């Protein structure tokens, strides 16, 4: 994998002339998890999609640059709330779909390694319908690892999981994506407090930096610093006051 760049996002977005969000500047440091919190519809996912180079239906006015001044295309992997597994493919083929879509030779050995890393070796030949929600999201994580991209964009990837599975997935993702630049969009203050090196709350007119624990992710759920941060984030999201 190539060196992971930091990303600088600066700009504003509007839909048919109506502002979605005003001029904001978001610095995503290299090799760190940056978390973007905020209420629904504020444009968090739009920021992520703009960085990913995906369609957004907004007019974006600004710049998205990598710290090494190289284009971000082909250096970004994307995980969404839905696992986006193809129901007609086995776990192995889902993990290797990227090569298939690019017309490259599939590396089944490496796919098997990735499946092993997410603990699903026994399920490699199953189809997604035979897996639980948590297992499916593990496959999606294995597929993301398979792509071996230095920048990972996570759009609420764990929000549809039950509490226990979500906590496990957070730990697994923090471990396996530790050497990359990660942007995590989430509604969940607890998730941000556990995973992020730095965190921001997005509002229509500004981006507010939040204090994050100084310990390394993934932090224990009952760690006092994590709990304090979680409470502070939750309080801020509800009242708008730090």
């Amino acid at each position, binding site marked *: 994998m190539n060196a992971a760049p930091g990303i600088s996002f600066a700009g504003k977005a509007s839909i048919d002339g109506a502002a979605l969000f005003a001029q904001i500047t978001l610095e995503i440091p290299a090799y760190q998890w940056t978390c973007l919190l905020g209420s629904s519809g504020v444009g968090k996912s739009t920021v992520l999609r703009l960085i990913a180079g995906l369609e957004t239906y907004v007019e974006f006015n600004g710049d998205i640059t990598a710290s090494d001044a190289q284009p971000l295309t*082909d250096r970004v992997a*994307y995980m969404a709330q839905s696992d986006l597994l193809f129901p007609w493919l086995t776990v192995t083929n889902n993990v290797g779909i990227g090569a298939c879509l690019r017309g490259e030779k599939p590396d089944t050995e490496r796919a098997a390694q990735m499946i092993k890393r997410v603990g699903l070796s026994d399920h490699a030949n199953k189809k997604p319908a035979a897996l639980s929600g948590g297992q499916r999201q593990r496959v999606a994580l294995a597929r993301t690892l398979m792509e071996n991209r230095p920048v990972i964009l996570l759009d609420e990837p764990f929000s549809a999981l039950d509490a226990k599975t979500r906590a496990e997935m957070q730990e697994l993702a923090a471990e396996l994506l530790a050497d990359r630049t990660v942007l995590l969009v989430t509604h969940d203050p607890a998730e941000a407090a556990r995973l992020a090196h730095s965190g921001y709350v997005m509002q229509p007119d500004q981006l507010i930096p939040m204090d994050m624990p100084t310990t390394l992710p993934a932090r224990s759920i009952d760690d006092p610093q994590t709990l304090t941060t979680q409470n502070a984030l939750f309080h801020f999201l509800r009242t708008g006051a730090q």
Partner: protein
Amino acid sequence: MNWKHSIISAVALIIVWQVIVITTGVQSFILPSPLKVAKALWFYRELIAEHAWVTIIEVFLGMVIGTTLGILTAIHLATSAAARAILRPILVFSQAVPVFALAPILVLWFGYGIWSKIIMAVLIIYFPVTSAFFDGLMKTPAGYLDLAKTMGATRVRTLWHIRFKAALPSLGSGLRLAAVYAPIGAVIGEWVGASKGLGYLMLLANGRVKIDLMFATLIVLAVLTVCLHLSVDILARRLAKDH
């Protein structure tokens, strides 16, 4: 459809039919009894089989050609905005002309042989197959396409590995409709002008007041249509198996 239920319904229908014939004393040239029809079916088995074979070929080739054209058109429409702008109005307008009204013209152009009937079947199934598959191709979940884009997928490979596969259940729905319409197309073609086929045999039997043969032919046609429907249903289920 449950086999036992189907057999029970068929037997019940035959009993009701027999009861109507006995109680009303209807003339056999209006409604022959099931037994008389069964006798005709046995007596004329070779004749019926010969004509059934022609209809089977017409329907089969009509299904294959119509489905192939439908799939190709749907892909073309789904991948080209220009094609959508130009072809879609023509397709919709073509449905305003009743296909049955075209039968005499098709017979005039393609003759009394099987091709006018095959083309009739093709025309009648082309729209439902195209329309169903096109809808499927246009409804690929957006998340799949986002994923493909971040993975650097090529357009052709996205079409084949994602959009095409995701649209297979829709194609199955189109094929189910086609299986119902294709025999109608072939038989109407045979009524308008033919020297072979079950539709032709029905007209021939009617003209010679062999009503038992006409009913026997009708039953064979119905059984063939049900068999076609069941086979296509199995195929459609397979297409939608993992969705």
